[in-house]
């Protein structure tokens, strides 16, 4: 499986670390809402089909990516930096040679 890192280009899946379901929302740090924390820590979507996931390019630039992957075909539909905004601020990904 190849994942296209917005910085490094297409790389083999062995360079990446799966960091879980990308649909989780972390409660505010001071929140005491245990249900919300429980959902964040333990609940994972597990769709048969397109799934938004977080992957770290741990064997490359170490950036975290938001990857939309089809869990049936393994097709990667999109990848972007998980860190919102960095891509546009850096503007270095698009003009990769």
């Amino acid at each position, binding site marked *: 499986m190849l994942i296209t890192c917005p*910085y*490094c280009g297409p790389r083999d899946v062995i360079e990446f670390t799966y960091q879980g379901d990308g649909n989780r929302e972390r409660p505010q740090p001071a929140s005491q809402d245990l249900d919300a924390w429980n959902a964040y820590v333990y609940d994972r979507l597990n769709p048969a089909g397109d799934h938004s996931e977080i992957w770290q390019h741990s*064997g490359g630039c*170490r*950036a975290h990516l938001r990857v939309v992957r089809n869990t049936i075909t393994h097709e990667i539909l999109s990848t972007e930096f998980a860190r919102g905004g960095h891509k546009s*601020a850096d503007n270095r990904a698009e*003009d*990769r040679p």
Partner: protein
Amino acid sequence: MAEQPLPERQSPLEPEYHPGSHGNFEHGVDVILSETRPGSILQLAAWPGEEKRLIEIIRKVTGLALPDGAGGGVSSGGRAAFGFAPGKFTVVDEAEGLAQAFAGSITPAIGTLTDLSHGRTAIRIAGPKAEWVMAKFFAIDFALPAFPLGAGRSTNHHDIFAQIQRSGADQFDIYVFRSFARSFWKALCHASEEVGYEVQ
């Protein structure tokens, strides 16, 4: 009291570093391996939006003008710089003390400087079979159009993380963690036996 001069830095490769020709060299030496031992290896990071300012500082301090583009880099004389991650650059100088040269200019508003002069080991592979040998280790495309001159790449060989810069048409500089350097060097020599190699 005058300070004692610093001792020579110990190479992590020492017991496994054997200058001379090795492997299948009777049929010609197709790669040359060496440890370049730069005095300074720095990592510079810019906060989002500050990348251009950092690139400008790198140009002012080192004279190296980084080209645009992810992984863009340049290698000139005893100095080299390349991007290895979003907003992050490795800057290398054969002389020691590059960190001090940057000290005043990288302000907290721009980003950070981390001195890795001891923590990374620089290994150079050069020669007509350099791409061939590199392909044994790293799952990245080493062909010139895909990996242009001066450019940098972050990748890994099993647990060994590596930053690689193409410093010549058939020359690569590989920066690995010091603790892994000997292990990687041994593997690199082993993989080069087939094509014949010389350690300089």
